[in-house]
């Protein structure tokens, strides 16, 4: 396992400082192009969800095709709680995410002894079940197939309806959640995850309670996916069951495979990259599918570390070829 670089180190400041300035001032640059602002807000949402999936798949090795289900639990959860109780939005978002994490952990408990094919099937089934519940809700509270409306984002009475203001709120969320994830994966918990991913028998032999950590990983994933979903519903003000459809879950997997699992920047690059792809290819569904298929194959066969992984290896190779010994272990 490569050394996991921390997000900010002194020698990288040269790269990160201008990047930070750019990220903070982009609303100014795009002040006449609110569609681009909308795009960036969606990026923030999917970055959070992708990071959640990375914790589950990249670090603890559990494949999941149920991400859109948890995304939906966050969306519909926050929508329902807010619409029926009038509680402030940030509060309902967090509540919905906690509920989602709880559901994820309950689900993970029996599922933790499944692997590969069986785990996939279990997550796929779970996604379908959530979709059924959402589209046939008791009393139609979710609006069934036609979706439901809610208020757009507001914080402490201040409306964050416009894409520009939502962007900053989203930015804070992204930074917080990604930082938490980063701390988590570098801690003992993260190392336990990795040990389980590599060889769960050996991990058990080393005294790690495999089941507990697998359930924990699911819980974190459930929280992140749901929080992203809650952000989504309060950005658009509307949600429909298509967002919860099983096919959407695969897109999340594609994002992290594209960007690179088990890394800080991987999910970010993956989320933004796939969203860009969707924009460009949006008009021709067949090309979109073809692109996903080919991309997936390329990244599975040739670039298993995703864009970020490949870039890292490239940099290592270049560094090494400048006169140092070639590091075969990392090529």
């Amino acid at each position, binding site marked *: 396992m490569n050394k996991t670089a921390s997000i900010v180190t002194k020698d990288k400041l040269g790269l990160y400082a201008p990047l930070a300035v750019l990220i903070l001032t982009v609303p100014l640059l795009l002040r006449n192009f609110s569609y681009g602002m909308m795009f960036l807000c969606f990026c923030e949402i999917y970055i959070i969800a992708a990071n959640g999936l990375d914790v589950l798949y990249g670090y603890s090795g559990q494949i999941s095709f149920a991400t859109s289900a948890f995304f939906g639990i966050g969306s519909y959860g926050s929508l329902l709680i807010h619409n029926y109780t009038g509680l402030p939005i940030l509060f309902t978002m967090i509540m919905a995410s906690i509920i989602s994490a709880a559901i994820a952990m309950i689900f993970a408990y029996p599922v933790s002894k499944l*692997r*590969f094919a*069986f785990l996939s099937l279990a997550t796929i*089934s*779970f996604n379908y079940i959530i979709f059924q519940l959402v589209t046939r809700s008791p009393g139609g509270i979710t609006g069934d197939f036609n979706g439901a409306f809610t208020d757009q984002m507001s914080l402490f009475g201040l409306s964050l309806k416009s894409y520009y203001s939502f962007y900053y709120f989203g930015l804070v969320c992204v930074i917080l959640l990604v930082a938490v994830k980063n701390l988590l994966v570098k801690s003992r918990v993260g190392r336990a995850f990795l040990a389980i991913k590599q060889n769960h028998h050996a991990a058990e032999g080393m005294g790690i309670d495999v089941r507990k950590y697998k359930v924990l990983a699911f819980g974190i994933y459930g929280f992140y996916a749901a929080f992203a979903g809650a952000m989504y519903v309060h950005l658009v003000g509307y949600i429909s069951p298509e967002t919860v459809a099983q096919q959407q879950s695969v897109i999340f997997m594609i994002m992290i495979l594209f960007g690179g699992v088990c890394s800080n920047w991987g999910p970010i690059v993956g989320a933004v990259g796939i969203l860009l792809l969707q924009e460009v290819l949006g008009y021709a569904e067949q090309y979109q599918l073809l692109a996903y*298929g080919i991309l*997936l194959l390329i990244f599975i066969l040739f670039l298993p570390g995703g864009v970020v992984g490949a870039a890292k290896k490239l940099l290592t190779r270049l560094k090494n070829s400048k006169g140092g010994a070639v590091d075969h272990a990392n090529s």
Partner: protein
Amino acid sequence: MVIQLLVAALLTGSIYGLIALGYSLIYRASGIMNLAQGDLMCLGGFMGYTFYNILGLPIFGAMLCTMVSMFLIGCVLERIVVRPIFNRNVSSSALILATVAVSYIVQSLELVIWGGAPLNMKSFLKVQTITFLGVSYQTESLLCIGVALLCMLTLHIFMKKSSFGIAMRAAAMDPIAARSCGINVDQTNRITWAISTSVAGLAGILVGPLYGITTTLGTAMSTKGFASAVVGGYGDMYGALLGGGVLAALETFAAGYLSSSLKQLVAYVAVLIVLFIKPRGLLNVEAVKD
């Protein structure tokens, strides 16, 4: 109503069974979970449409042509996609995703060649309804059930009695021992894939006149077929058929007696229950890899 539901369940069960068959065969032979089976079924449907509606072949001729074409496609698929992926020793999760990639590519090719509008195969029978014992049946359903059963029977005989079939089963059980017996394991793997694809294609052309041919049918069928295979016992041919029948019966009778909106819910909850309690399925099949 019971009889009509039973017939409907048999039909759906046959379709699920055919797809599940492919899943189990491939899993037993190469240890891969091919999530593209449903889309291959759709491809079969599209090809059937081409042969029957466009080229005007008689229906059984169209079925045969479809099966043969899908067989060839299966061989090509194994050669070009599966073999290289396998040789690279990619992780199991990545393998699953590779088959998802294949399903996307198949879907996009379907969209490019046949367009996005759902296609409608003409009914191939003059008599649309048969009335027997006071109950009416769709003749097409009965025909589909018949053809599916025939196919399963043929496969059973092939696997049990023919020397190639026995070689295939040997290679699936223990590739190394089989190789030392002189069995060409590469070839048996390829034929396994080809048979799975061909059988899925047959399911597609059978379903065509009844439910229409669209690309979206593929994903739903993939999951149901996969679920059937697991419920019956993943990796076992007969388990696949049993699983298909059980799942279809659950769905159809729940829809018929409880409420049509519960159809999908019942099916997937049943799958989860089986996974949690008895992942080896009804026939208690041991997993190929852990």
